């Protein structure tokens, strides 16, 4: 079991003829993901690497292949349009890897996405500016190195890319596999927040515990803490990056900035602690903290 992504979901890649899109389409296929087509406007009718058909539009690709998910690798100025095009074509899962989509464009996407989608609740948008998502052993839509993952009971949700790889690697080395790992991305307006992902982990019987990786900026961790306290029944380990980050400075990610006194590390840790979350102060202790939790909570059978 898993959330959002399983081995049977057909996937298209928007921007497959670009360098990043092509490289990662190949990696996704190699991991076993059913990538069925690519989309690049103006290149319809061609074949990608002699393997997959290329279509001019997402609607055409979805209709001809039955795909319900997409990975978006288009350049940032075209990111918002690519998302809305996928939504309008009725896709259910839209994973946006593209970095640098303007915040105003994401505000427009948020405003329009349900309007253009034929689905009752609209699609799930993961990202932008994240590593994507992976259900180990089944499929991945994203750019994470596959080999560091292993199937298992720990769900992971994160605003970071490489820090997520670090945490996954620690888990894998301790024999703790992952159910699904979701990178919600480092932008200030993510398509999906912590809470929507946690709701899915709560319902997923294969997920026995969750690692949450946050960082300074915004109040998503505080909101997640409220949700965990009220509604989440599984144990959570959290690490929040940026204890040493100065105020009013953007730390790489568009969303990682303490602005107008909002988004401090202390505030996030305080909220998560109050919600009963186990805090890893040391980023190299994320795996160990989870391993201890499994011992203390008698979750060991979940590993067998």
């Amino acid at each position: 079991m898993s959330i959002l992504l399983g081995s049977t979901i057909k996937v298209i890649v928007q921007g497959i003829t670009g360098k990043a899109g092509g490289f990662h389409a190949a990696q996704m296929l190699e991991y076993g993901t059913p990538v069925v087509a690519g989309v690049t406007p103006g290149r319809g009718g061609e074949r990608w690497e002699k393997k997959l058909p290329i279509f001019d539009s997402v609607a055409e690709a979805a209709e001809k292949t039955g795909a319900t998910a997409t990975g978006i690798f288009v350049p940032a100025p075209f990111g918002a349009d690519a998302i809305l095009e996928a939504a309008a074509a009725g896709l259910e899962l839209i994973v946006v890897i593209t970095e640098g989509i303007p915040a105003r464009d994401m505000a427009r996407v948020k405003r329009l996405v349900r309007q253009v989608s034929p689905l009752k609740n609209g699609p799930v948008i993961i990202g932008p500016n994240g590593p994507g998502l992976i259900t180990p052993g089944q499929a991945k839509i994203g750019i994470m190195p596959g080999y560091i993952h292993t199937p298992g009971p720990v769900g992971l949700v994160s605003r970071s890319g490489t820090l997520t790889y670090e945490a996954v690697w620690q888990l894998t080395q301790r024999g703790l596999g992952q159910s699904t790992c979701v990178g919600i991305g480092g932008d200030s307006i993510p398509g999906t927040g912590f809470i929507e992902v946690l709701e899915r982990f709560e319902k997923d019987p294969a997920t026995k515990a969750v690692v949450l990786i946050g960082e300074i900026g915004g109040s998503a961790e505080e909101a997640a803490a409220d949700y965990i306290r009220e509604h989440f029944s599984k144990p959570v380990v959290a690490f929040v990056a940026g204890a040493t980050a100065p105020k009013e400075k953007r730390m790489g990610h568009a969303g990682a900035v303490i602005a107008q006194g909002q988004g401090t590390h202390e505030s996030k840790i305080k909220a998560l602690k109050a919600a009963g979350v186990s805090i890893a102060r040391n980023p190299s202790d994320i795996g160990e903290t989870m391993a201890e939790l499994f011992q203390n909570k008698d979750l060991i059978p979940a590993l067998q």
Partner: protein
Amino acid sequence: MRLLEHQAKKQFAAWGIPIPASALYRAALSVPALKKKLGSFPWILKAQVYAGGRGKGGGIQKIKSGGELRTKARQLLGRPLITPQTGSDGVPVRSLLVEQGLTIQKEFYVSVLLDRTLGRPIVVASGEGGMSVEELAAERPEAILRLPFDPLVGLLPFEARRIAKGIGIPKAHLASAEKQLIALAAGFLASDASLAEINPWALTKEKGLLALDAKLTIDDSALYRQPALNPLKTADADSPAEAKSRRIGINYVGLDGTVGCMVNGAGLAMATMDLIKLHGGSPANFLDVGGGANVDQVREAFKLILSDKKVRAVLVNIFGGIMKCDVVAQGIIQAARTIRIGVPLVVRLEGTNVERGMEMLNRSGLGLITASDMNDAAQKVVQAAAP
């Protein structure tokens, strides 16, 4: 990207928001010419720096004569300005704004920003302007009014009126306030701002309601479609090193410590800084070389770290995904050929092509210290940087 007050005011004025008469200070300016523009004394001389809290640091001065203007301008330009928002070293003052002095009757607060939770733009306003919104939020949260608006249509007139009335704008100025609020929201959207703030939004005896101060921050991701604002970007750097990092195309923030850091990914870079601190050291910088950095960028990033004279040891922490470990190794080796690395170098590589990268570094004869994991690396680098 942040704008200085005078740059922000120029934008606000173009959007239709009234500002005081003003001029950028130059030593060659004649007092009679300034008088023609600003009217009679007093004038206000304002240091143009990005940091807030200028008044508390002596960065805003009342001017009563031509002689005083020259003396105070020389003083301000001659030494760094220390405010509650700068470090103890302060920031250099490179330009000054001279403005007409106005009689302030009441101060309001207004800003437009993106509400991250809602994913929508929002107007934040208060009848208690002047102090920072952080202080206001902490002391009198009930005095702050928030109103999200539709990014597709902008702020509607009735919404603007609700805000103006809600914060107690006097009747005679409601129409002006409504117009200014709509203009601020429209300008915010059109310029891809992440913050447009007027504080104080002052009611003056001479010119009615106007922007006495102005703050404008533009979304870096949108600069490509803001050709008028893009040229201001190189100016917004707190240090020459930060300016250089922009040219290289990497994310760099200078800090006070002694351990230089080179990491891929913003989250891992912050976590690495935190880990150095946990082990009793202090990071000299935040540096994210990014996901797809090439050899040139790694080499230049490495040289940038070493150009900081405070650095006593360097930690390279790479978890290769798209970024390949051998590319990092090659960049470090190239940098070492062009400059002398006079400090200990601790390297932790993991992920894509890790074996090849480590082999290249080991064969290079650079005498680096390798680490088995992130924790080990941080411990070793803190030890190496100890005085």
